[in-house]
């Protein structure tokens, strides 16, 4: 019975976290945009505009449901739910701290990859259901982009998984720090089981994993449909892309899904490459910094800090780089990222055979 209550409480807690995160991420996005463009951003509502997003969400919640008369009512109503659920389910296998994981499965990573690809179906549903040229064009662009960029994401993750030898995200997290059950080496030569900290992270266990992480980060930006890869919702050409016709709470859910996806890929990158909940501080002689900063509470703290930092970088990139053209987008994916990811995968195999043995 206890486990049943826990199984109900965990998703509710994660949902509340996502909602809260979205509120603050939207505020942060607007403030960072203001900073990048040398203006103030929201200032009117509350101190420093802190209540701006709360006001926005109140406005969205009050709006009535409007579906265009020519739209496919069922598909139109179901699409936001499907898109949000696809992203939300991804959170079920990501660890927050040592053994703090909603569902500890052997196929965790593979599960996330599969579930996130359902997102594409929801976007197609929204585009078709709206019965609007801009929506359809936006969703077709989104799918072309998401299917292409799923390959570099998958390949760069495979390169990391070949080093970790497991798809279980809990084990991957454990094997990057002090609590590791196997021997970990910094760049393949320096045993760091006792030292821990930043040296134990997967990204430093083999040098090519840094390239892998760069590929993962770029491709995951495209998976979230964020600038510079936001041609699916290019405002100047397509109004809003697949969510042109949406309003009220349905639009709120699409927005929630977008920010949940941002946090999900940031967290996935942190878990696979950046040491998950392990502390970045190493043990230096008598100063056992890593020992002091490892534990359930510290674990959640480090996961949050690292993921929020990655999200901040995503926002920074969005407001700094201009949008890619469609052909540049495909060139980047098929001619640069995928071959590089394949090379990383091959190096992982050699690394495994020649250096880790």
């Amino acid at each position, binding site marked *: 019975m206890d486990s049943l209550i826990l199984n109900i409480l965990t998703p509710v807690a994660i949902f509340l976290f996502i909602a809260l995160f979205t509120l603050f991420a939207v505020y942060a996005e607007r403030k960072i945009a203001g900073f990048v463009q040398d203006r103030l951003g929201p200032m009117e509502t509350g101190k420093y505009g802190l209540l701006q997003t709360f006001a926005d969400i109140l406005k969205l919640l009050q709006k009535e449901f409007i579906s265009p008369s020519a739209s496919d009512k069922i598909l139109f109503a179901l699409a936001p739910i499907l898109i949000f659920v696809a992203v939300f389910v991804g959170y079920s296998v990501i660890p927050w701290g040592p053994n703090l994981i909603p569902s500890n499965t052997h196929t965790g990573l*593979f599960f996330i990859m599969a579930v996130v690809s359902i997102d*594409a*179906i929801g976007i197609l549903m929204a585009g078709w259901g709206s019965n609007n040229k801009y929506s*359809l064009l936006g969703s077709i662009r989104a799918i072309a982009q998401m299917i292409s960029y799923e390959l570099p994401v998958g390949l760069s993750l495979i390169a990391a998984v070949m080093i970790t030898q497991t798809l*279980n995200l809990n084990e991957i997290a454990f094997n990057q720090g002090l609590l590791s059950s196997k021997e970990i080496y910094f760049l393949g030569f320096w045993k760091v089981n006792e030292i821990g900290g930043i040296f134990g992270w997967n990204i430093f266990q083999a040098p090519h994993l840094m390239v892998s992480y760069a590929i993962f980060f770029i491709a995951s930006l495209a998976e979230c449909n964020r600038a510079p890869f936001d041609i699916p919702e290019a405002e100047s050409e397509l109004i809003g892309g697949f969510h042109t016709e949406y309003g009220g709470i349905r639009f709120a859910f699409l927005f929630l899904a977008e920010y949940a996806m941002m946090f999900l890929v940031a967290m996935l990158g942190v878990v696979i490459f950046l040491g998950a909940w392990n502390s970045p501080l190493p043990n230096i002689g008598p100063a056992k910094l890593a020992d002091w900063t490892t534990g359930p509470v510290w674990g959640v703290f480090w996961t949050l800090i690292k993921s929020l930092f990655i999200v901040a970088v995503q926002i920074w990139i969005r407001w700094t780089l201009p949008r890619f053209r469609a052909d540049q987008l495909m060139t980047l994916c098929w001619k640069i990222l995928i071959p590089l990811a394949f090379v990383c995968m091959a190096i992982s195999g050699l690394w495994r055979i020649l250096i880790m043995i």
Partner: protein
Amino acid sequence: MELAIFYAFAALVIGSALLVVSLKNTARSLFLFFIVLFGMAGLFIFALADFVAITQIMVYVGGVLILMIFAFMLSNKELLADLQNTSSKFLSIPNWQSLLLSIGFLAVMSYGIIEWHDNFPQWITENIRQGNIIKSSDNNINQLGIKFMTQYLLPFEVISIFLLAALIGAAHLSRKEDPK
């Protein structure tokens, strides 16, 4: 509890599969096909084949189904109208292949039901006695990998050659002709 979930999944799959073939609205039936595939993945999990279940979602939902919807959206409206207005007579000429196929499937299934009996065959009881069974908490991905690289190496390689051939074919079809 588990039995109830199993039957719920089975009913979901059968119900939505029936709807897929009977709906007039092709777009909706394509999206319903997603539910069929998803329910099938759920049934695979009941057979302790979690890897197969996730592969099902990854390949069929993330790849094949999206391509089907894509093809549907980009194809000619009149062609689709023709597809939607086929004759509804039960035994018309274009239906004879499907009739043959369904009779064949019915024969196979009824043969299975006739041959089915309650007790396990000997090799299964033997293995259960020896404790040679898969539990839901086992990690069978390692097993899959080892089997692929040893016992089933030849089929694995044949499939990869087949996929390579399909890739080269697709690249050949989509390339531009030389403007000579």
